[in-house]
């Protein structure tokens, strides 16, 4: 549980355009690079059997490349259209991975993904991953902070608020948007790699639109504007999910009822949290402007 909690934690740290596509790109890249070459029933074509850190770098590079590919044509889009088009790209990637068996083994996915050996540095696996996730999170937030607190971040905000006016003072809107788009994809790729290590499996099923929803939800729950709020929101969401799931059922009927009630509860609590916004307030209180 801790592992998964912290993984989500890391995932939630990716703000801005966080969508499942870059996450998947990272995870797949990691899997492909560390995978043994195909054999037997495997239908994928590549597998480089590289050590985990090469896979990790590859994950960052892959999501970077994917961000470049998707970012370039979508530059002209704004606001919701941009968000929804990246969403569309994610769906395309999903459908592609599902149908194109030569890359990721189709719907089966790649299983038994390599993971680094933490025992070498004297850590149990769970703590190892937890630590990596936290590390990734901290690095990412620091990076975000650094970028957002600079004139660069100011320009990015300005572009978001009013593109025409930003251009009128000489801001290269295209460059700024493209850069921020690409930069924010990289940590997501890394998180994807981490995720692949933890689950030891990548398959299209893991990277559905729900993951994107999850990120959005976390963002909104925590209030969109402070990094702290985002982290809080994610934590709250994960904890909440865990609490709902931590009840165990000893009869089938109970589990069955619980399954539908759980959905309803989850939904209800979203609605209520959003209505009264406790986390936003908390984050605002603690945040230094």
């Amino acid at each position: 549980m801790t592992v998964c909690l912290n993984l989500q934690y890391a995932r939630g740290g990716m703000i801005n355009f966080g969508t499942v596509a870059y996450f998947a790109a990272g995870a797949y890249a990691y899997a492909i690079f560390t995978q043994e070459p195909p054999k037997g029933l495997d239908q994928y074509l590549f597998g480089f059997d590289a050590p985990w850190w090469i896979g990790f770098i590859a994950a960052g590079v892959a999501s970077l490349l994917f961000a470049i590919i998707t970012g370039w044509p979508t530059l002209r889009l704004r606001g919701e259209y941009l968000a929804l088009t990246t969403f569309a790209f994610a769906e395309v990637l999903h459908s592609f991975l599902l149908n194109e068996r030569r890359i990721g083994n189709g719907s089966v996915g790649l299983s038994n993904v390599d993971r680094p050996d933490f025992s070498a540095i004297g850590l149990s696996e769970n703590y190892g991953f937890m630590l990596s996730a936290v590390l990734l999170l901290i690095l990412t937030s620091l990076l975000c902070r650094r970028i957002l607190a600079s004139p660069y971040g100011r320009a990015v905000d300005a572009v978001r608020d009013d593109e025409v006016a930003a251009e009128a003072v000489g801001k290269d809107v295209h460059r700024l948007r493209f850069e921020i788009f690409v930069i924010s994809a990289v940590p997501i790729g890394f998180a994807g790699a981490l995720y692949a290590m933890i689950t030891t499996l990548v398959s299209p099923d893991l990277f559905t639109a729900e993951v994107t929803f999850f990120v959005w939800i976390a963002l909104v729950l925590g209030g969109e504007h402070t990094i702290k709020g985002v982290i809080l929101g994610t934590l709250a969401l994960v904890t909440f999910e865990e609490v709902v799931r931590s009840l165990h059922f000893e009869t089938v009927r109970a589990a069955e009822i619980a399954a539908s009630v759980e959905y309803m509860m989850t939904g209800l609590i979203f609605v209520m949290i959003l209505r009264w916004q406790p986390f936003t307030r908390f984050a605002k209180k603690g945040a230094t402007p």
Partner: protein
Amino acid sequence: MTLIAQYFVTGIVTGCFLILATIGFSLTRRVEGFLNIAHAEMLGVSAFIAWGLNTQAGWPFLPAAIVAIVATAFLGLFIGRLVYDPIRNLGPAVLLISSVGVAYVIGGAIDGIVGTGIRSLDIPLATTYKFLGVRITDYQMIVVGLAALTGISLALFLNKTKTGLAIRAMADNPALAASRGIDVQKTSRATWLVASGLAGLAGVMLAMIATLSTDIAFHQILQILAVAILAGLGSLYSVLLSGLIVGVAMDMSVYFIPAGYRPLIAFAVVIVVLLVRPEGLSGRSKS
């Protein structure tokens, strides 16, 4: 050649279903200003009410369908007032996520009440007609007919009636609308009724052509989104065109590439069109 024509016609039908499913969604987006993810679940609500009345209570299809549509409309109104009204000023992102929550609640409730398994209405098997070698069933014709009817009547409603005009004015600038004698609350209620009623209609169509499982409704949200984006969010007339484009593109694609790629096609079309027209087909920019 007939084969291609057949794909085209099927595509039109698919498109018309998408239109029915999307148009209420777009209306909500336009007036209430957010993407109502729970819209897809409203289709499910209506489909299952129709199913329940039809197969469990033994009603004929038509009254069951009408009751389902009306009930869905009022449920939508109820949810709108209960959930969305109080948080309207918190912004579209909050509303959107709340609607995900609502979708969960509805989905869970349907799951709990109806349970898993397969359901279909107690109606005769579709009858197929052939025109110039191209097949079309009576149910498909109903879908096409209703899509056309809905499109036209919605256009008339929005342009020619006071309520329609009020809906558009309020969508644009609610504060000003109030100062121009438009009852914002009443209008908002009317919108929820109409949008949910449209979802109800699409749900009944869904029940008519598809086999119902508890999650089939939610599966539709991706395509609804695709059509809505392509149309230009919140624009209504372009939904008609964009539904047809997506439907035809998806179905025609089956002729050329494996059918598994159908959803990919829907979004690929969206991406391609948006690259040419960044604000969707309607091309209306919102600053």
